[in-house]
């Protein structure tokens, strides 16, 4: 494992700037998640570290060495792809052994067998070693794909939405497994996702990308509680943060320059109104352990959480007060 550092990296495809000005250091043993929507430059960042793309500007350092000009094989990184991750013409065993048989490693057969079996045990796929790679379930395939990264001792694990093609239950199981393995091995991981739960639960730090720029990087708590701007604020939180103009809450004191109030559910206090209320219940979504309460505040919608046993119905009048919400200025940056 090693530290990986990007310095002022820029990559363009034709006229499109995929990523620009990326400065990012992933410490040895750290798990960093890159969060952002499709096209934000997450995958390009991974591919730049892997050597599958050459940066137009900037440098990539792996373990302190300048790796910018190196081929993927020379960089000793491991990559887990979102899909198509296994060689379909090979058995599970041969898939796992493939990196070890490469010309840059050339391990002997006994050593390969030992390593493959150890990794297979770790991922609980020992029984599947003889199978064709194509005759596995989705979860098993992704386990083998992760296994193929684990058989070697790479500088960094690069994972490109490895769980996104799995169903929800499997995703939750593998998420936990992946985190345990990473902690046991002390592995350096850069993990690309657009799933905020994966980022929040697994990462030591989260980097948020927007249009090829790294907008903010910090611990999940920092990103959630003190987002730098509106864009970062909308990345995390379920239900999503409510964005309202200050005029929707005339009694609420806002700092000067506030254009938008960002209210997460924990910033919203509700009480049944005794007449003169300024919010109405529009809709209630029952999610079992909690309810999503859709409110209308003047001309604006606001969604918050309530306990399922709260006795509210559509059309009821509500008093809404804000407790320590986030404030954003005209440029979208957070104030205060």
């Amino acid at each position, binding site marked *: 494992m090693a530290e990986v550092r990007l310095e002022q990296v820029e990559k363009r495809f034709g006229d499109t700037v995929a990523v620009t000005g990326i400065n990012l250091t992933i410490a040895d043993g750290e798990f960093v998640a890159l969060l952002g929507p499709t096209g934000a430059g997450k995958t390009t960042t991974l591919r730049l570290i892997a*050597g599958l793309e050459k940066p137009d500007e900037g440098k990539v350092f792996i373990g302190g060495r300048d790796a910018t000009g190196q081929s993927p*094989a020379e960089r000793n990184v491991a*990559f887990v792809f979102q899909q198509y*991750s296994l060689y379909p013409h090979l058995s599970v065993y041969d898939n796992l052994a*493939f990196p070890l048989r490469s010309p840059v*490693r050339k391990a002997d057969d006994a050593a390969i067998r030992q390593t493959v079996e150890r990794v297979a045990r770790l991922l609980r796929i020992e029984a599947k070693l003889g199978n064709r790679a194509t005759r596995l379930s989705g979860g098993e395939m992704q386990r083998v794909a992760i296994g193929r990264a684990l058989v070697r001792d790479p500088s960094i694990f690069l994972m490109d939405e490895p769980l996104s093609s799995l169903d929800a239950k499997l995703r939750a199981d593998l998420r936990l497994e992946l985190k345990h393995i990473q902690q046991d091995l002390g592995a350096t991981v850069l993990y690309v996702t657009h799933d905020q739960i994966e980022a929040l639960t697994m990462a030591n730090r989260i980097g948020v990308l927007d249009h090829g720029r790294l907008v903010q990087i910090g611990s999940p708590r920092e990103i959630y509680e003190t987002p730098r701007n509106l864009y970062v604020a909308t990345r995390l939180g379920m239900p999503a943060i409510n964005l309202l103009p200050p005029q929707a809450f005339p009694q609420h004191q806002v700092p000067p320059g506030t254009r938008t109030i960002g209210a997460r559910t924990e910033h919203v206090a509700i009480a049944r109104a005794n007449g003169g209320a300024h919010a109405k219940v529009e809709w209630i979504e029952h999610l079992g352990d909690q309810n999503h309460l859709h409110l209308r505040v003047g001309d604006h919608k606001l969604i918050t959480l309530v306990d399922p046993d709260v006795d509210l119905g559509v059309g009821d009048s509500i008093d809404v007060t804000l407790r320590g919400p986030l404030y954003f200025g005209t440029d979208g940056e957070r104030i205060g």
Partner: protein
Amino acid sequence: MSGAVTTAHSVVEPSATSRRIAAFLVILYAVVTMVPLAWIFATAWKTPPDSISYPPKVVFDPSLEGYCNLFTTRTRQTDEYIEALGPPQGACDEVTRKREMVIAGPSNYLPRFVNSLIIAFGSTFLAVSLGVFSAYAFSRFKIPLADDLLFFILSTRMMPPIAVAIPIYLMYREIGLSDSALGMILLYTAVNVSLAVWLLKGFIDEIPREYEEAAMIDGYTRLQAFFKVVLPQAATGIAATAIFCLIFAWNEYAFAVLLTSGEAQTAPPFIPTIIGEGGMDWPAVGAGTTLFLIPIVVFTVLLRKHLLRGITFGAVRK
């Protein structure tokens, strides 16, 4: 529910009647296409008089004469000479002597057949190898004017090959390639390579690049990744392409007639030149054709699975 007549039927499963009609049509088509082949097989086992009798003989005494004549040249001799030779040596000798002839030596069929094998398989191998590399390049790399180049490659198939036969004949004569196996291999390769590039590009486009990228990250160079990961997955496309190329090169007649006459002559121009007494030796022609079909049938049957996938390729999205 026992004894109840089931009237429910599936919408997607064809009914018994339509199944029967389909089977009838398929068999009818098979029969129609098989008749000329059957006729050739039968002719090979007839005697020369039987082969040209009218009305045609459907029932006849099988004879080895066609196969014997195919592989030998014979000379007419006097009865005294034949008797002085002693008892006939083997079945062919016996058949020949009945016609008051003796075997003078082997015919040219075997060397012509070997020429066909060398030229057809050689050009197929070259066309597919060149095709798979260029198809990979077209599929994976940013090539300037890639579309124009691909069109240019295809355009070589747009004129009838025979239109360039005379220029090629003159060219080959000038550079000493006429009537040589190398010349024929190069020619058939040139004709087939455009087909190979186009077919294989389609197959390679379908192989996700992630496989090669994964291999390159796993410690392989691009070329090693190509051989270890891309080629095995393109096997189906390569097999289908090879069959199409081989069928063309194996059956090609016009160029072969024009450019080969001796050393490098292939079987197709040779077979129609087999003359017996009193005109064409039809049983020998039938025998030559029958044997000529065998390699292509074997090759096609071996790769049949791939061929079916190959010709329906692109018709059904996975």
